[in-house]
């Protein structure tokens, strides 16, 4: 009972400290509102506003028809350029794609030859290179077929393919981006807040003061975990309701309470991580660096930025230790695919296990570092 009281009072103290730091509060508010809106709305569709230039050496109705087919939102209006401008334009990154329509293209097509159009792709833009080339291929084929249809009635028989996209029919990027951004902020904020709160106590000598009082290390840790976890959880819930659902109009398929349960477990894991880092780092500068070094892979490799299954096996395995990997997984399942607990329980379990691991580690380190410190 006394222990619970200690944990409660120490946690209140953390909340009061937070309240005294207006810059930090401002940053938290930014992170969970405009930060999310910005990230969600600026993510382009995979092929969006792609810059394309066309070297038209044919100047026939067919080539004009082809050029007209590149329309927004997929493409910016095509730039008509000369052959000698092509290299420079691609070198400087002005055009991601250049299409070279050879002379006598239309004539060759009508004559039943199979003329070649050259498509140059800036392959350093990996994300666009593939999809863009695919689109251009399809557009080219459709336009030429349509053109030919006017001259010839008969075309080979076909089977159609009906592609239906489940869960996000229009593949709106902001649906995905907004929620992944919320997850990024949850992870970032909870790790920084707890880790830094611990280092601050050490740097200001207040932890020494706590240790002459009837307060034990687990109580100090749990106090930080519940208080900072609460702050982040509240921010998350509000952000999902007001910003993601309200402002960005992202439909949430599954159960929000179930997701928040997952967030709660995730927070247990990340706040424990934060404290663990706080016991490893000896000063705030060290901690800051450690945190950023951990946050980068957490943000990039957890499956929230690029699909996990495409990563090398080794990286996939390593990232299984990160709670974010599982959290991203369960968030996608619950929020987009409307999955229930029956589907996501393995992720819940994994996060609990990881959280427990970091908590135990932090506890062991905590006792050790405190003994060295004073």
């Amino acid at each position, binding site marked *: 009972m006394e222990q619970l009281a200690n944990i409660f009072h120490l946690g209140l103290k953390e909340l009061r400290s937070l309240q005294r730091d*207006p810059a930090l509060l401002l940053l938290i508010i930014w992170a969970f509102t405009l930060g999310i809106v910005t990230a969600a709305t600026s993510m382009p569709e995979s092929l969006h506003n792609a810059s394309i230039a066309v070297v038209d050496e044919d100047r026939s109705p067919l080539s004009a028809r082809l050029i007209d087919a590149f329309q927004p939102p997929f493409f910016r209006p095509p730039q008509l350029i000369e052959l000698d401008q092509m290299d420079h334009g691609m070198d400087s990154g002005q055009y991601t794609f250049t299409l070279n329509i050879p002379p006598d293209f239309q004539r060759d097509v009508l004559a039943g030859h199979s003329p070649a159009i050259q498509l140059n792709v800036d392959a350093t833009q990996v994300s666009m290179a593939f999809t863009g080339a695919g689109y251009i291929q*399809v557009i080219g084929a459709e336009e030429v077929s349509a053109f030919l249809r006017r001259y010839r009635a008969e075309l*080979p028989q076909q089977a159609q393919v009906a592609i239906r*996209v489940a*869960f996000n029919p229009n593949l709106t990027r902001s649906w995905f981006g907004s929620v992944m951004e919320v997850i990024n902020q949850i992870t970032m904020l909870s790790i920084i807040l707890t880790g830094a709160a611990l280092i601050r106590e050490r740097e200001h000598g207040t932890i020494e003061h706590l240790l002459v009082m*009837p307060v034990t290390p687990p109580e100090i840790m749990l106090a930080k975990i519940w208080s900072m976890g609460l702050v982040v959880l509240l921010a998350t819930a509000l952000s999902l309701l007001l910003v993601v659902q309200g402002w960005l109009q992202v439909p949430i398929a599954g159960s929000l309470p179930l997701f928040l349960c997952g967030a709660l477990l995730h927070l247990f894991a990340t706040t424990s991580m934060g404290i663990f880092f706080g016991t490893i780092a000896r000063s705030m500068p060290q901690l800051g660096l450690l945190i950023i070094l951990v946050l980068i892979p957490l943000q990039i490799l957890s499956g929230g930025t690029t699909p996990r299954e495409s990563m090398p096996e080794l990286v996939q395995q390593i990232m299984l230790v990160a709670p974010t990997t599982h959290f991203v997984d369960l968030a996608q399942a619950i929020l987009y695919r409307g999955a229930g607990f029956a589907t996501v329980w393995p992720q819940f379990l994994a996060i609990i296990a990881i959280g427990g691991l970091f908590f135990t580690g932090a506890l062991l380190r905590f006792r050790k570092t405190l003994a060295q410190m*004073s």
Partner: protein
Amino acid sequence: MSAPAAPVAQLHEVSLQYGKTCALNAVSLEIPARSMVGLIGPDGVGKSSLLALIAGARKIQSGQIEVLGGDMASRDHRRQVCPLIAYMPQGLGKNLYPTLSVIENLDFFARLFGQAESERKTRITELLRSTGLSEFGERPAGKLSGGMKQKLGLCCALIHDPDLLILDEPTTGVDPLSRNQFWELIERIRQQRPQMSVLVATAYMEEAERFDHLLAMDDGAVLATGSPAELLASTGCESLEQAFITLLPEAKRSAHKQLVVLARPSGNQEIAIETRGLTMRFGDFVAVDSVDFRIERGEIFGFLGSNGCGKTTTMKMLTGLLPASEGQALLFGQTVNANDMATRKRVGYMSQSFSLYAELSVRQNLVLHAQLFHVPATEIAARVTAMAERFSLGGIMEELPERLPLGIRQRLSLAVAVIHKPEILILDEPTSGVDPIARDLFWQLMLDLSRNDGVTIFISTHFMNEALRCDRISLMHAGKVLASDTPKALMSKRELPSLEATFIAYLQDAVGEQAQVPAPEATEATPGAAAKTLKRKRFSLLRLFSYTRRETLELRRDPIRGGMALLGTLLLLFIIGYGISLDVENLTYAVLDRDQTTTSQAYALNLAGSRYFIEQAPLHDYDELDRRMRSGEISLAVEIPPNFGRDLKRGAVPQVGMWLDGAMPMRAETIRGYVTGLHAGYLQEMARQDSAATASTLPTLEVRYRYNPDVESLNAMVPAVIPLLLMLIPAMLTALGVVREKELGSIINLYVTPVTRLEFLLGKQLPYIALGMLNFVLLVIAAVWVFDVPLKGGLLALMVGGLLYISCATAMGLLMSTFTRSQIAAVFGTAIVTLIPAIQFSGLIYPVASLEGFGALVGQIYPTSHFLIISRGVFSKALGFAELYSYFIALLVTIPVLLALCTSLLKKQEA
């Protein structure tokens, strides 16, 4: 310089408000030149504020202040006189750098004042010798005892021969012997430089007696001025301490009663604190050397000793904060055990430096501690009120401790230490920096506790009149107890009239001749003319490099940080370079084949042959499809309709259904592209089998992937990950540069030394640019030799781009650092302004041109976007300055913009 008659400082109607509190109320006074002026008064009456204003460290709110013949409100004048003023702020070593050694700290300040090497050396040696710090020259300032920090602080203030020396409670926590040495040192300097004026705030009335001129202050106003003799005469008192009390307004005076020390009822008491051969070693250094004592319940046991003699260490062992190397410490007959909660509740401890929560109000601190000691909830309010009354904290209950003067903070610490009515009190210099009235009040309380409640008190102090009130005292030096007895017995043993003399005699016996500081020959280096002219420069590389040197030293003292930055980035380059593969592969799919003919199987086989897809167990019905897709097990489901083969042959155009998991739009887009292509391929294949003629009419598209023909993610990603890492890591390295000084107090050096804001910022930035470049070179080497990423363009362009870019990144960190007030906010803020823009808006994954909204705007101006193009251009496209010049210019422009923002956010004076 100023004629002897002209005052060194003149104040006219100076007022200062902190929020609602009025710290100074229309103060007008003159401070005579060439003399030693003392500022005395209770805690929190505005002494420190006054000194900070005169030193130019704090911004003038109203009124006029003239110092050294000019208006302190004028920035030009401040710049002119800054090198002539030395200011030592209150607090134990607040303006020092804990990881730097004593000599390095001094050297840093000497450089700030533009001294040449030989001059620095002489001065440092001389100052260290005068203060008895010579032996500790190599010790980090953070490891010095409280008193030694004060001495070092003074040395730092004296390094540049000021005309006006301003000391805010300089001898707080300094032992009597050192205090003597300290004033002798100042006396000697004054003899050599008679033009120097000294302005001191002090709580020690014995010290005030030495001064030429005194200013007594109360409640933001000056009560009386005059020489000590004049003050004594006008009040008719015998000692300054009394005179001081007499000067106070009636209300405050009435609270004070002459302190009567009642004798302690004798004997037969149980032992409360006992140590047996208690020893503490730190490596080779023996901090406490087999100390024995027994303290009875209810006794007040005084602990006296020179600075750094092991008092604090002994106390920490008693509280269980430090485990003893040897020997035993017993409280109530039981060995001290760090995990024994029951004993902790019976002990109250107050540490030397303020260690309460600066971000909680006074009341919140009291309540929190009462709660943590499990004072019953119903009693807490009453207990807090009682404490507030007892320690006169009533008027400031809602204030934050960081805004309170030292003396009042000490009272708060004491109140916190006794709030749970402990049976043992361990107090480490509880009255340092506390004014005489408050000290008497505090002793009244201690005597109450001891005599009436039987509380055992173990206290260390540097005040001899307090030591006299103890039942017994121990004199300690260099880890050993020299003598232990009642104060009177000790005095009579040495046959000396005062305890101070007795103490000094004991100490001198112990240290031998060392303590006798030889009178220095007049070796003071005359400040070179070169140094003088340098001081007035608007921009000085020497000052800038002084900060650079210090920052570099701190970085070197912390090899973990530098190592983590270098190794961490290499590791991340590896993980991310491989991991962030943008070719979407290994997609899982399953087929719901409702036709089950060879044609439908051929169609399914067409998919299975693709390198992008991995087939899972076939589906049997829609429910299964839904379930498996929901769980994320498959991201594509293919439904082949019944009679697919038959319809196809008949030309009935059957429809194949494809369900994509749209949860991750990018992946879904790619899958859509793949399946469209595969389907088209299937049809073409069929058509070819049908008739060769029709198929060949369609034009072919020859796709050439330039710069990266195999579209290998690694070749594309490594040149992009390097800019990412070089933004995040250098920015985080500098992110704490300024805010850390703000939080820990050393920012005051920016306020009171001639260093300008730009010198300060650039000085801090340089070492991190160097570290960043080293990091950059390592990353490029790793990219070329470990990852085999071809470097097609010129190295020079890449390096110049890197240099500009790293300068931008470090400036970003500094910007967050000047913007925020706490280190936590700086870390978080830096993470926010670097992670997301660098990962999402700079072209790492999506080209900047295709972004939308605010992100597009950020992407266009963010330095990472520019350097990403430079890096990719040089690595993959063999480009150089000629093609990429506009991006170099963009980076070049960003640097001064960021630095100008930093400079404008940074204040050269405290607001």
